[in-house]
C-alpha cells in the first residue's frame, strides 16, 4: 500500500510540467463533477415538484372520495353519513358539492368553482393553511389565496364578486353577485388557489341551488396506510350505488406525468454520469499511452500485472471519487439555496407553483455517492483489465 500511495501521489498530484496528462485529469474529473451535480439537482427539483403537487392535492382534495355521478338522494345521504360516522376512528369526512361559475378578473371573466363542505369538518378534512381577512365576516367562506390577485377587493372589502346569469324570456342577462368572505386558504398549488372557493353547504344551496345537493363525501384518513383497506370496505358497502376513488386515482394523469418526467430526466442524467464515468476509460487509455514505458519498467522491476491494474483502478477511483464528492457537495449547496426564499421565481399561471420547488433527503447523497463510487471503480477495473492485457514488453521497443 505504501508503494501504491507513493506512485499515485506522484502520478496524479505532482505536475512538474504543464502537460496533456494534467488536462486529461482535469477534464475527466470535470465531466464526472458536472454529471453528479446534474443528477442530484434534477432529482431534488423533480422530487420537489412531485412533493408540492402531492401535498397540495392531499391538502385540498382528501384521500378518498365516495360519490355518485348524479348526486346522492336524501336517503342515500342519510345512509352514507350514518355508516361513515361509525368509522370516525379511521377517518374524518365531509359532504361536498361543486358549483361552477364565472368571476370578474383582470383579464376578463375567469372560471371559478364554489365547493360546498361541512364547515365543522374543515380543519379535519382539509389540512391547509387558512387565514382570516381583516375585514372578513365569520361565515366560513374561504377563497384561494391567489384569487385575490384577480380581485383585490376581496382583501380590501372582504367581498367576492361573481357573475350570475339569468334568463328573461329569450335573452340571458348577466349580473354581478357578491358573497362576503371570511378568509383565504393556501394549498400551495396555483390551480386550486386561483379557482376555488370553500363555503358551507347551506350557503352554497342558498346561493346557487334550488334544493340541497351532495355529490359525495370526501374522506381524510388518520393513517394513509389504511387507504386500500378502507377503499375496499367502502366499495363493498356501497357497491350498488356509489363509486369510491383514491386521491391518486383522482389525479392519475398528473401523477403519472410527474413520475414519467422524473424517471426520464433521472435516466438521462444517469446516462450523462455513465458517460462521464466512461471518461475514466479514456483517461486510463491516454494515461497508459503516455506512461507505457513506466509500466513496463515497473513490471521489469517485479511489480505484478495485478498491482499495475490496481494502480490504474485506484487512480481512476480517486479521480472519480473526488469529482463525485465535490459534485454532491455543490449539488447540496445549490439545492439548499433553491429551498430558501426567494429561490428562483416561476410564473404560477404556467407552472402552478411560485418558485422552483425542491425536496431532498441527506441519505440520497450518501446513496448516490456510494453508487457513483462503485460505478467509477467498476469502469476503472474494466479499463485496467483491457489495457494491461497487452504484454508489456511490446512497449520496450517503442
Amino acid at each position: 500500500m505504501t508503494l501504491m500511495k507513493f506512485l499515485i501521489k506522484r502520478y496524479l498530484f505532482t505536475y512538474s510540467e504543464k502537460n496533456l496528462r494534467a488536462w486529461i485529469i482535469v477534464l475527466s474529473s470535470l465531466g464526472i463533477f458536472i454529471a453528479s451535480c446534474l443528477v442530484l439537482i434534477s432529482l431534488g427539483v423533480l422530487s420537489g415538484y412531485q412533493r408540492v403537487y402531492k401535498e397540495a392535492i392531499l391538502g385540498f382534495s382528501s384521500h378518498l372520495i365516495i360519490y355518485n355521478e348524479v348526486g346522492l338522494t336524501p336517503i342515500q345521504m342519510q345512509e352514507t353519513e350514518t355508516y361513515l360516522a361509525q368509522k370516525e376512528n379511521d377517518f374524518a369526512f365531509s359532504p361536498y358539492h361543486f358549483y361552477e361559475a364565472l368571476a370578474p378578473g383582470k383579464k376578463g371573466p375567469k372560471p371559478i368553482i364554489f365547493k360546498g363542505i361541512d364547515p365543522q369538518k374543515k380543519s379535519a378534512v382539509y389540512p391547509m393553511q387558512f387565514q382570516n381577512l381583516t375585514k372578513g365576516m365569520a361565515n366560513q367562506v374561504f377563497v384561494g389565496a391567489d384569487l385575490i390577485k384577480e380581485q383585490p377587493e376581496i382583501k380590501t372589502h372582504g367581498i367576492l364578486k361573481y357573475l350570475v346569469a339569468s334568463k328573461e324570456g329569450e335573452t340571458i342577462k348577466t349580473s354581478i353577485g357578491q358573497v362576503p368572505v371570511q378568509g383565504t386558504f393556501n394549498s400551495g398549488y396555483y390551480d386550486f388557489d386561483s379557482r376555488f372557493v370553500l363555503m358551507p353547504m347551506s350557503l352554497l344551496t342558498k346561493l346557487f341551488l334550488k334544493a340541497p345537493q351532495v355529490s359525495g363525501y370526501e374522506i381524510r384518513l388518520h393513517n394513509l396506510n389504511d387507504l386500500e383497506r378502507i377503499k375496499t370496505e367502502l366499495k363493498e358497502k356501497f357497491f350498488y350505488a356509489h363509486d369510491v376513488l383514491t386521491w391518486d386515482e383522482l389525479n392519475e394523469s398528473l401523477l403519472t406525468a410527474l413520475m414519467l418526467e422524473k424517471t426520464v430526466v433521472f435516466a438521462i442524467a444517469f446516462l450523462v454520469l455513465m458517460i462521464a464515468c466512461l471518461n475514466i476509460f479514456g483517461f486510463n487509455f491516454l494515461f497508459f499511452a503516455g506512461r507505457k514505458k513506466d509500466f513496463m519498467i515497473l513490471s521489469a522491476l517485479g511489480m505484478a500485472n495485478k498491482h499495475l491494474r490496481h494502480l490504474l483502478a485506484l487512480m481512476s477511483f480517486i479521480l472519480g471519487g473526488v469529482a463525485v464528492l465535490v459534485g454532491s457537495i455543490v449539488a447540496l449547496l445549490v439545492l439548499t439555496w433553491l429551498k430558501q426564499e426567494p429561490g428562483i421565481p416561476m410564473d404560477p399561471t404556467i407552472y402552478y407553483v411560485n418558485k422552483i420547488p425542491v425536496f431532498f433527503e441527506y441519505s440520497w447523497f450518501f446513496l448516490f455517492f456510494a453508487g457513483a463510487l462503485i460505478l467509477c471503480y467498476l469502469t476503472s477495473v474494466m479499463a485496467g483489465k483491457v489495457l494491461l492485457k497487452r504484454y508489456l514488453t511490446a512497449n520496450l521497443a517503442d
Partner: protein
Amino acid sequence: MIEVKKVSKIFTHAQKEIYALNDVSFQLSSGDSLAICGGSGAGKSTLLNLIGGLDQPSSGQVIINGKDTGAFKEKEEAQFRNENLGFVFQFHHLLQDFSIEENIMMPLLIKGTSKKQAKESAQTILNQVSLEKMYDRFPRELSGGEQQRAAIARAIVHKPKLLLADEPTGNLDDENAHHVFELLCELNHDLRATLIMVTHSQTYAKKLNHIIELNAGVVANYH
C-alpha cells in the same frame, strides 16, 4: 545455475511465422558472465527478455536455479523477477517522474521493504556508483553516463542473483561506456551475481567468461 533449453520464439506477421529465436540452448553457472552478440534483428534482446521472464518462449524452457520460469503464475513470476533479477536497458529506462534516489528505491518498495530502509539501501548504492550528490535530481537532469549508472544502481539495489543488461553501453561515449562496463564487471565479481549482457562490442564481449553469437535467431557460436 541458468539453463536455456531448446528455446524458440515465433512471431506471426502477415500470416507468416517468423523465428526470432530457433532452438537456442546453453548453460551458465552462478556468478558466471555471458555476452550475447550478433547483428541487428539476430534475437539478442528477445533472448534476454525470455531469460528475464518479460516474455514467454513459444517452445523450450528457461530454468533458473532449478525453477522453470515458464511454469510460474503471474504473481510468482513478478515476485521471482523482483527478488532474483536486475535489468539494465540500453536507454536506462528510468522513471521520469521520480528522483534518482526514488528510482533506486523502487525494486525494494515493490518487494515490500519500508521506505526508510529502502532509502538507506539506495544511499549506499548511490555511493557505490558515485552518484551520492545526485540523489534528489530527476533523470532528465543527469548526463547519459550518469543515467546509466543510476539504472545500474537500481538493478543491483536488491542484490539480484542474475543481472541482465541490454546494450548498456550502446548509447554512451567511449569514456562513459568503459566506466559503466567496469562497474558491471565489478558487481559481477563482488556480488557473485551472474551477468548476461547484450553487446555489439567485441572488446567488452571478450572480457566476459562466455560469448554466444546469434545469427537470425540461431546460435552461430558459443564458447
